[in-house]
């Protein structure tokens, strides 16, 4: 049962080759094999969204994918969204709007918003809500994350009602 399968994938622009057991999750390949612990594993069954990464341009739950299924794919994790540059407008907006507290859900939120804005630089409020619905945040109450998303989308950020 300990058969190892080859996986060749690109993570944050860097090619990697690994030999993995079939049951290894993509999240665990990233964290345990590649040391990219920015991807957080929360619930482990697709509910919380903390492990979201960008796979070939699409936001995916890395706990709901086998590592071997990512063979041939290009993955971006929170460590790679900014490349070699400064933090991205999404990251800056989360900072500016206090869109995080404990930070556990934040890597997934950053990856989802990055994928959303790459696909559509001016998403509607409905699209922003649709994307953030896929993340559980137990600290912020979501309002500051929504504000951050609006700022990153180049839209007015609503003031908090007094």
């Amino acid at each position, binding site marked *: 049962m300990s058969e190892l399968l080859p996986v060749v994938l690109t993570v944050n622009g860097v090619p990697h080759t690994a030999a993995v057991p079939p*049951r290894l*999750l993509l999240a665990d390949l990233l964290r345990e094999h590649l040391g990219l612990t920015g991807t957080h594993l929360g619930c482990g069954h697709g509910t919380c969204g903390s492990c979201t990464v960008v796979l070939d341009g699409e*936001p995916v739950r890395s706990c709901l994918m086998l590592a071997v299924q990512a063979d041939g794919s290009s993955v971006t994790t929170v460590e790679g969204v900014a490349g070699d540059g400064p933090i991205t407008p999404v990251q800056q907006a989360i900072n500016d709007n206090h869109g995080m507290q404990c930070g556990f859900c934040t890597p997934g939120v950053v990856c989802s918003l990055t994928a959303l804005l790459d696909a559509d630089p001016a998403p509607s409020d409905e699209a922003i809500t649709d994307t953030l619905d896929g993340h559980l945040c137990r600290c912020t109450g979501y309002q500051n994350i929504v504000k951050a998303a609006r700022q990153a989308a180049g839209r007015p950020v609503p003031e908090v009602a007094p």
Partner: protein
Amino acid sequence: MKPPHFEYRRPSTVPEALADLAAPGARVLAGGQSLLPLLNQRLVDVGRLVDVNRITGLDRLTVDDDRLHVGATVRQATALRSPVVAAAAPLLVAALARTGHPQVRSRGTVLGSLCHHDPAAELPAVALALDAGIVVADGPTVPAAEFFGAAFETAVPAGGLAVAVTFPVAPPGTRAGFAEIGRKAKDLPLVAVGAQITVADGRIVAARVAATGLAAHPQRMTATEQALLGNPADGPAIAAAARAATGEIDPDLTLRASAGYRRRVLPAVVRRALDDALPTAGAVAA
């Protein structure tokens, strides 16, 4: 929260997949968005996963001979964004917008949701309403009305592989509405209703309505459809359809809510779905 051990196969053709699936305990892995949560929680055990994602041609999304063809590996996100799907099967698009989160739709497949057959899932009701056909490799095409068995059971035999689902292309003047009641947005609904309505010269000439979350498998709502047919696309027709819905189905599912609650909310969900499909008809008082 890690899956148990299993063998992994990645066939590149349908015949190879069928050979791989012949082993006891073998199971198809497509989008994996229902199967991986079950495996991670060890709620199911599999001897072998047969990953069909690399089979050439299963990602086909086309219209041929008046049927929309959705291959086994067509992602829900792809179908949701597709202008071809929007024109041919507007109800599928309306339901997909309510199916899972974007991060799940990126991997989850249309056909996989049908084959998983959760009794609360949205897409089986769409397949039933639209008279979809499920194409089984080396077997007959199964009409949706004969496809869904008990919860989590379908007409795909053990060791079999569904390769596509096809939908009739909607005529011009067709609109769709989808409504659901659930405890959380995007979570599996308690009750959901989909309606695809064709209007010509102000009158409803075709009505396809189905519900999920009422029983072990989705329900086609023929009395509700009959209440709409031939009538003007207006508020009184919608009110009559919601009344007909109350009479035609007696929910018996008690998953996460009582059957009585489902009975109570069903007409409201029908009305919302029809208001969504026919926005010019105007909202009707309860």
